[in-house]
Structure formats: C-alpha cells, structure tokens
C-alpha cells in the first residue's frame, strides 16, 4: 500500500477526504483512479485531459518528481503538492 499525502486545498472539496490515505496501486495514475472511484470528480482536480497532471500539481514518489506513469512500490510515499503559484 502506498502512503499518499494530498494537498490541503483538496480536502474541503470532497466529503470525508483525508489528507493521508493508503492506496493499493501500481502507478501514480492508478492511485488517482482509486481516489476517483471513491470521490468522483477528484481526478479532474489533479489531472487535465490526456490525462496529464495539471501544470501546478506536482507529485513526488519517495521524494522523486513523478508522472502518472511512475510505478509505486508497496511502501512508497506519494506526495501530491500544489506548487507555489499565484498570490
């Protein structure tokens, strides 16, 4: 199970969405699919059509910058970051 950490701006948009969640998934994209199944609409917040990660959504797997295709290990830590932008 990957240990997934979500940005604070996401939680208020979805009922009972936690900041930290364990997800069984082989890739980052699959992990987002798992979240989408439980919280419909969540993928749209993180991804553009393609799908691609949104420009200012950065994902790190074990502290390395990742894409949707990046594989996850059983104990991977996944950080989803809303990058510094705007004002």
């Amino acid at each position, binding site marked *: 199970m990957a240990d997934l950490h979500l*940005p604070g*701006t*996401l939680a*208020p*948009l979805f009922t009972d969405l936690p900041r930290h969640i364990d997800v069984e998934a082989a890739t980052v994209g699959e992990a987002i699919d798992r979240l989408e199944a439980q919280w*419909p*609409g969540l993928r*749209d*917040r*993180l991804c*553009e*059509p*393609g*799908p691609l990660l*949104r420009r*200012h*959504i950065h994902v790190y797997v074990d502290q390395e910058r990742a894409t949707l295709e990046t594989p996850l290990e059983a104990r991977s830590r996944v950080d989803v970051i*809303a*990058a510094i*932008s*705007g004002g």
Partner: protein
Amino acid sequence: MPRTVLVVGTRKGCFLLESDQDRRDWSVRGPFCENWPVYHAIHDAGTGAIYAAAASEWLGSAVWRSPDLGETWALSSEGLAYDADSGRKVSKVSTLAVKNGRVLVGVEAPGIFESRDDGATWSLLTTLAGQPGSEMWDDPANQPPGHLGISALMFDDEADSRFWAIVQGIGLFETTDDSASWTPRNRGLRADWPRPHEEVGFCVHKLVRSPADGARMYQQNHVGMHRSDDTGQSWVEITEGLPTEFGFAAAAHPHDRDTFYVIPLDPGHGRCMPDGEAAVWRTRDAGESWQRLDRGLPQQDAFVGVLREGLAIDSYDVPGLYFGTSTGQVFASVNEGESWSEIASYLPSISSVEVAVVD
C-alpha cells in the same frame, strides 16, 4: 418582505451581500467557493440557485453551485473539457448564463459548454467553428490564458434557442437555432486596427439589452459606446459626451429603454476611472447626452477599475445600482445613480456583481 441579494465574484471567492428592499443596511457573507478565483457569479431566478464560474491555478476550472443562497456549495467540472486530441484546452471558465434550467458557460479557448442537470455535468455545445475569425481563436498560438475566450453570453428573453456570444477581440455573434449556426452582429462598429475579415475583428467588452424594449441593445466596446435599435443587427456610436471611449461595465434601466449606465475608464494599462475621480455616467436619451453621477463616490486618488460584469441594476420601481471595484469596494445607489454609498470596503478584487430580489 423581499430581500435584495448581491452575488459578488472576487479573486478570492464568492461573497453575498444582503439587505431588505430599502437597500440601506447590508451584511456580508463569505468567502465561498474555497476562495477560488471567481470570474462570474450569477443568480438563477428560476430555481434560486447561484452559479459561480471559477478557475483555480492548481485545481483547474469548475462551476460551483449553491441551491440555498450560499448555505451549501458543490462544484463540478465533469465534461467541462475539450478532448485531449483536439489541441484545445479549457484554461478558464469566464462567463455564465442560465435560463429555464439550462446553464451555459463560456470558456477560453473559445467554446460554450452546457448543463441541463443543474451544473452536475457538462457537454460541449459549440466552438463557433467556421465563423470568420475562428482560424485565429483555433490557432494554438492563441491558446494561452487571457487570449480569445468567450467573454459573455446572453439568452433571449423569449426563444430558448436564441442567444448571443462575445468572442474576445473578435466580436458579437448571434444564434437563433441553438448554435447550429451563427451570425456576426458587428455592423456599424468601429475598430482602430487592421481586420482580416469584414464582419469581425471588433473588441466588444459588454452587451446589455433593455428589459423595457428587446430591440434596444447597448454595448461598451474597446473603442466607444454603441447602441442598437434592431436587436444587434446594426450599431451606432454614442460615445460623444463621455470622458473616455473605453470601459467594461454597463447596465440598462429595467423600465426605461433610453436610460443606460456606463463606467468609463482610462484605456491603456491603467484601466482605472479617469483622474482618480470615481463616477458612473448615465444617459436618459439613448446616448444623445450623458450625465456624470459622482455624489458619494471618492473624488480624490480613487484609481479604481470596474470589470465587465462589475455593474448591476435591480428591478425595483426606483432601481438601485451596484458596482464592485478592482480594489474590493462595493458602491450602491438606491436612487438611479443620483447618490452613492460604500456598502463593502475590503473585499478581494471584484470580478462580477449581480443583484437578485428574492422573497
């Protein structure tokens, strides 16, 4: 007793300002929409719902909806995207219109999406493909945010299949068959730049229609104020007497076809009220002459701007006017603009103001 509700879209969320029918004392609720930048927020008189077109830097574009005047909110962007292989991208949801349970949202890159289920899901209605000028807005080089979106939509009061759309920097278009076909409606407008097409290439900032006479329209253009007496089929310029030809916001009197309000701004990069003196301008004779309305408005160092949707007028017998500024003030008049008072002072930068009278 009726309540008067201002729906205010700001750079940091949506706010509601509420008063009674006297419109003297106001309370502020908000921010709503999780502080997302709101570009346009409207009230659906049919259902009582509020819709807010918002675009987060991080989390993308969506339309928020509140069915209960701000008590609860939900957002959706399901279907509010172009196909990945189209080369087009929804960088911003700019404008909303609602009628008889149908919601339209105009986006950039230019396109109109619709929802028939109260904003829960969306589908692409049109990109105005094939219209003169569409080669410009379909050019990927013109896709960055801030370029060539649908900046305004307006339903016809009667025919559901008739509405108007403004394509930023291109012009005004009308459909009478629910977007199966479109007609440019820019005849008589002025442009101070080269145009590759005869019918388009005009910078229409704001379109309003007289509730008292549907044939009467007004528009604030990048270059000048204009009036139409034939539902937009032709336009005449009525700028003379205004301090500048540039501005965004405009409002038509609910009961008098000849009375119309506008907020002239300095053109160029400033886009503030001229000379730091705030004023709304009114015509009572369809643009033959203009009166400056500034009693109660700041007359020194007031470098404020008002955007396209920033001026609203209510439907009372003696209508009230409201405008929101780029620096977060809301000013109100309950006597058709003769005098003004500041009813909110420290909101975020304001994108839109709409007024609703609700029971």
